[in-house]
């Protein structure tokens, strides 16, 4: 079991403010929240961390036997919440971590004040009438794609990610680790992500939920976002005028606005 210490937890904002926890999805790390999380640091205690195996998480925390389902990732979210002694948490999960967030909120509903699910998909693979958008064979294709892109990296060659002179705020740590994962971890996480089925957990959610859905998303199509919103009692869906799977990167302002509209108003502290 990973400890908060091993997951590279970062906390910003007033210590006694309402807590908001951001959980990144498959592929990258907590830097994904760079354009969105700071906007909440004026009136929230903002918590970000790296999933096990990603970014600056302690490689020792990775345990292939443990992380063979999303339950372990949900437990890690709960561990962070418990270790930081957070209450009435706003939990924001992107992509696969939207489902880990759902599992965490179902397991311990008393801890959470609201759920924000960005580009959620409870099941990626088509199943009967349910359209997840992918077939089983596609997963093999993804694993092959991961392999060809981790080829050099896996043999301890330094990752060649260009530094960015024009945007020095993207520090060394970012270029060193962003979107880089140990190939074995990436393979297993990809498998767990794309083979998971969390549809049964959705009706059990009692936490007020916002689904943020991009107009066009190749990973989690609108129908899937709609399915999530329809399955969670009382959930609200906001369709963002953005394409892609990462509105917090491609449309951060819209993402922040939609979240602000949904969250119980906390008077923003003037900057």
């Amino acid at each position, binding site marked *: 079991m990973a400890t908060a210490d091993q997951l590279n937890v970062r906390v910003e904002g007033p210590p006694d403010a309402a807590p908001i926890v951001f959980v990144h999805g498959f592929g990258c790390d907590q830097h994904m929240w760079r354009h969105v999380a700071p906007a909440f640091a004026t009136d929230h205690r903002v918590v970000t961390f790296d999933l096990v195996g990603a970014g600056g998480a302690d490689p020792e925390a990775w345990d292939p036997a443990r992380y063979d389902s999303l339950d372990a990732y949900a437990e890690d979210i709960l561990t962070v919440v418990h270790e930081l002694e957070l209450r009435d948490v706003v939990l924001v999960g992107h992509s696969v971590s939207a489902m880990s967030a759902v599992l965490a909120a179902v397991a311990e509903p008393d801890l959470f004040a609201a759920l924000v699910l960005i580009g959620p998909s409870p099941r990626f693979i088509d199943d009967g009438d349910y359209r997840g958008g992918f077939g089983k064979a596609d997963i093999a294709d993804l694993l092959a794609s991961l*392999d060809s892109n981790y080829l050099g990296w896996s043999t301890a060659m330094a990752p060649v990610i260009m530094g960015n002179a024009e945007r020095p705020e993207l520090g060394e740590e970012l270029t060193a680790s962003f979107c880089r994962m140990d190939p074995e971890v990436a393979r297993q996480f990809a498998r767990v992500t794309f083979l998971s089925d969390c549809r049964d957990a959705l009706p059990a959610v009692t936490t007020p939920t916002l689904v943020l859905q991009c107009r066009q998303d190749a990973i989690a199509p609108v129908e899937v976002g709609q399915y999530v919103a329809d399955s969670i009692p009382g959930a609200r869906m906001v369709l963002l005028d953005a394409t892609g799977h990462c509105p917090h990167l491609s449309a951060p302002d819209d993402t922040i606005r939609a979240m602000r509209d949904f969250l119980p108003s906390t008077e923003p502290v003037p900057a």
Partner: protein
Amino acid sequence: MTVAESGQASDHDSDQDSERSSDRARVAFLDALVHDDPVALYESAPCGFLTTTPDGVIVKTNATFRTWVRREAAELVGVTNFADLLTVGGRIYHETHFAPMLFMQDQVHEVALELVRPDGTRLPVLVNASLARGEDGRPRAVRIAVFDATERRRYERELLDAKERAEASELEARALARTLQQTLMPPAAPTIPGLDLAAAYHPAGHGTEVGGDFYDVFPVGTDDWVVTLGDVCGKGYDAAIVTALVRHTIRALSVSERRPAAVLKGLDDVLHHHETDRFCTAALLRLQRDADGWQVTSGVGGHPSPLLLRAGQDPVPCGGRGPLLGVLDNATYEDGCLRLEPGDVVLLYTDGVVEGRRGRELFGEDRLLDTVGTGGSHPTEVVDGLMKAVLDFQEGTLRDDVAIVAFGVPA
């Protein structure tokens, strides 16, 4: 003459003229190349170019790219996303890695993807992309350069296959080493009726190699047992072959030879006649019960003498002597004898115990004697305590493998 002269002069002039004109032609030619039509250069560059909106919608492509993906401009511009041209796996990779990296770092380098043509065939490519921002800092366009990587990808796949085969071979080698090692030890913890017995083995390093240590416990009659422990020099498969030979030779000879010295002499002969140049050391004990208890006959060949641990006394060697096995011509071996009393324990160990090193410090005989103490312990405590001391001394990773056997008469 004049004509000829003028003719010559005229030839000379025309030579110079033609030289000048070919110079001019070359300059003009190079000039034309330098000022190559940028549009033509863009269109027929030896790599694919395309521009998309920050959302990924293709707004411009070059001819090379269109040829590679076998699509007309009308099928691409304004209607197709770059990600639409990728395999499903590539599309997921694009959404989960490529696009985030592009938005966070403004550039992406050497991403391996595959373009899918209308007929389903695939073109492996390497992709570089940069994000152009407007004056307000907002993303304006994505510029993408695509390189044909067919040959490279084939080579990379071969490398990947080779790596996977190498990893599988290593796993198999470890499993084989472990299996082979197990054949050199009794499969289950041996027992001798009427005696307490304990044994332990720990491989050197990370256990990927077969060590030369062995032990064996077997009956040769009623209340008549052999306990042996030894060490074949070296490691690896060829050492293991000799270890197996030694173990089986001891078993075979022990059936007809009662005296350990005679068994060791026979083993010495066998090793001399074997093509191996490996030698070995061994301690060999014959345990026989009579009306008064257990009689132990002890032989050694170049091996530390087994120790008798008796309550309230310092450890004493069990006796027996003789040189390394398989080395000297005309080697001779002698047995020692002792009678076990209730509570007595006999300890056999390989040199991995006393020769264990921590930096320049040796585990040594004194530490061994301190660890086994002054007797009165159960064989299991003796074996476990000694193995723990050896492992602790070398911080868990042994330079040489270690085998320990102890047996005793219940007090």
